[in-house]
């Protein structure tokens, strides 16, 4: 399913954040920087405390009942008609495109899932198309590589919006990498079920990112980031390197820092 062309709303006064389970527990700074970026644009961000996970791990592992049990709780969390912003293309695609399939045939939840799907925006998509993000780059010149997750790319078109945000930073050069559109080998439970194949794919990804000459990698998806950075760090440790050969961070954190945070 290719990402669709959609019509975008005016910049709202209020919006929800669905942070995702990975951001909440493992990368909270990325979530906080996303909130800061959005609030600096004058949007009040609401974080429903009941949120947990989009349900994707069970959905892609052959456990649709378990996925539904988790997903149905998330569907209820956004009563106002505000946009729901997700700092992960993969989870955004799950909620926008796969919830309606997960609840297909359910007279109550399918329409709700469809209605929610219309309000789901991946963070970079929202920043480009709804906010019209344009802030001055206050950082030193640097070269970064962009990794876009497969679902963000193919189901949300986020490779274009992520690239557009980086292109708006005057001092940032985006390095060309070999096979930018190829998967990083994460694939959720795939990384655990098929470790040898995952290792081969992620090792190639790390090599092409390092070879790109970028000083760091940025991505709007934490799953890929943990996979890529965890692999790079493991290689560094095995080689006895103290300094990371491939540091990286969420695009939200990079953007927030480059545009000088509160002073931006």
């Amino acid at each position, binding site marked *: 399913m*290719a990402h669709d062309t959609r019509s975008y709303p005016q910049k709202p006064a209020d919006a929800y954040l669905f942070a995702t389970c990975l951001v909440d527990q493992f990368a909270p700074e990325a979530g906080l920087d996303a909130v800061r970026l959005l609030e600096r644009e004058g949007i009040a961000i609401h974080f429903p405390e009941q949120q947990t996970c989009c349900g994707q791990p069970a959905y892609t592992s052959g456990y649709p009942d*378990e996925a539904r049990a988790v997903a149905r709780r998330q569907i209820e969390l956004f009563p106002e008609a505000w946009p729901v912003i997700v700092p992960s293309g993969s989870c955004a695609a799950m909620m926008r495109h796969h919830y309606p399939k997960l609840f297909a045939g359910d007279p109550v939840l399918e329409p709700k899932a469809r209605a929610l799907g219309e309000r789901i925006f991946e963070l970079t998509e929202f920043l480009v198309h709804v906010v019209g993000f344009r802030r001055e780059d206050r950082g030193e010149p640097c070269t970064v590589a962009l990794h876009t997750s497969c679902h963000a790319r193919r189901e949300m078109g986020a490779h274009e919006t992520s690239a557009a945000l980086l292109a708006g930073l005057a001092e940032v050069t985006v390095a060309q990498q070999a096979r930018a559109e190829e998967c990083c080998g994460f694939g959720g439970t795939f990384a655990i079920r098929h470790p040898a*194949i995952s*290792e081969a794919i992620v090792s190639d990804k790390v090599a092409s990112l390092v070879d790109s000459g970028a000083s760091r990698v940025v991505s709007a998806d934490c799953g890929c980031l943990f996979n890529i950075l*965890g692999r790079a760090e493991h290689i560094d440790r095995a080689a006895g390197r103290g300094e990371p050969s491939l540091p990286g961070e969420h695009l939200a954190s990079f953007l927030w820092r480059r545009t000088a945070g509160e002073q931006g």
Partner: protein
Amino acid sequence: MSEPIHFQPTTGFAERARAAAGDPALRRGFRGAMDFLQAKRLAQFPDAGDLATLRDLGAAIRRHALENLPQLLEQLEAKLVANGVQVHWAETPAQANAIVLDIAHRIDAKRMVKGKSMVSEEVGLNHAMEAAGIEAMETDMGEYIVQLAGEGPSHIIMPAIHKTKQQIAELFAARLPGVEYTENVDELIRIGREVLRRKFAAADIGLSGVNFAAADTGTLCLVENEGNGRMCTTVPRVHIAITGIEKVIARLDHVPLLNTLLPRSATGQAVETYQNFISGPRQPDELDGPDEVHLILLDNGRSQAHADLQLRATLQCIRCGACMNHCPVYARIGGHAYGTTYPGPIGAIISPHLLGIGATAALATASTLCGACNEVCPVRIPITEILIRLRNEAQARPAAVGALRGAGEARSALVSTIFRAWAAVYSHPALYRLVTWAMSRGRGLTPRTQGAWTGIRTPLIPARKRLRDLLAERRRQ
């Protein structure tokens, strides 16, 4: 005379994949070939809008054929019979082989030449022929090479793609009498051709696959690049075509559109060198062509896919191989690791109907669901959605009536328990908050060894404070 190999794909998949991924020569070979094929395909579709339209049309033609499959098969049979073609139906590989053997025995055949046919691989035809004392000779250069090596194809379009020219040079020198070692590719092809020429002339039966079978005219369409397909279908006195029941299309004039997609998607060629349209045996006023033409239509599990409205899309496939050419998993492990006739993404979704859900469960999980296959499929098969469905079926609780063959066989009590526990935590926000709070507070106790994850990566450690804690602090400030 060897017996057919009965693969149990799940068994040993992890070991085969590990061995292949750890073989630098294999990795280099497949990477180079995949990069080459991807670039060639892309060059054939310079306009994204045109490509999208072509794919829409290709998908519509194939869906239309599958929606009308029973009627179209009846029409195809009637037209073929009227054209003088003998039509045979086979439910199983054994039946397909028995039909070929019956024909061979009736005409006292000793030698068969074969054009490229994946369905003949699927039924293990070569083994069945050998067992009956009939020489079955592959004439597609790639197929000839893997046959000479005693292997099967590792790609549905490029069977010998796993072999380097050095390996082929060694193979020819070792197996062909009087042939010296040479790495000159043109010379290797010339040697192969010389062997094959003699075989065409001496063969009693020519066997081929079918790319499209047009129901309105009773025409078998066969595309190829080497001319061996034309030789197999015209030189021997009997031509036997074998194909799956899904290859039927409603109209002959659907072929140009499908043939616009097929070679471009497969090998990045604008057109195949040979397009054969076979509409019957030699007529009295014709100079050449076979005396008899037979078509064997094989089911072998395809009806099961057809009966399910979601899985039916699997049968839209026109066997171009673009999904494997773009698959990050296939590129790392090659075709043999899958252990099935059809490897790669299309193999993972068609094999369950041929071999059972349980026997192929590992293949359905051997995908990151990255969607590269969906993006290039010329007939828009939603491969990753079908993979998710097959994962569901593999874990399904046993015993629904009308269940897919092998459904539930891969259900693991441990994994099921893990997901039940996961769902209990993540569908109860209070419990989730408690668990994640405890994980962050006790982050020092996080195991540094996290199964397969930390085999090659540093461990995942919860942050000191969760996002919800940071936001709460921010609100208080």
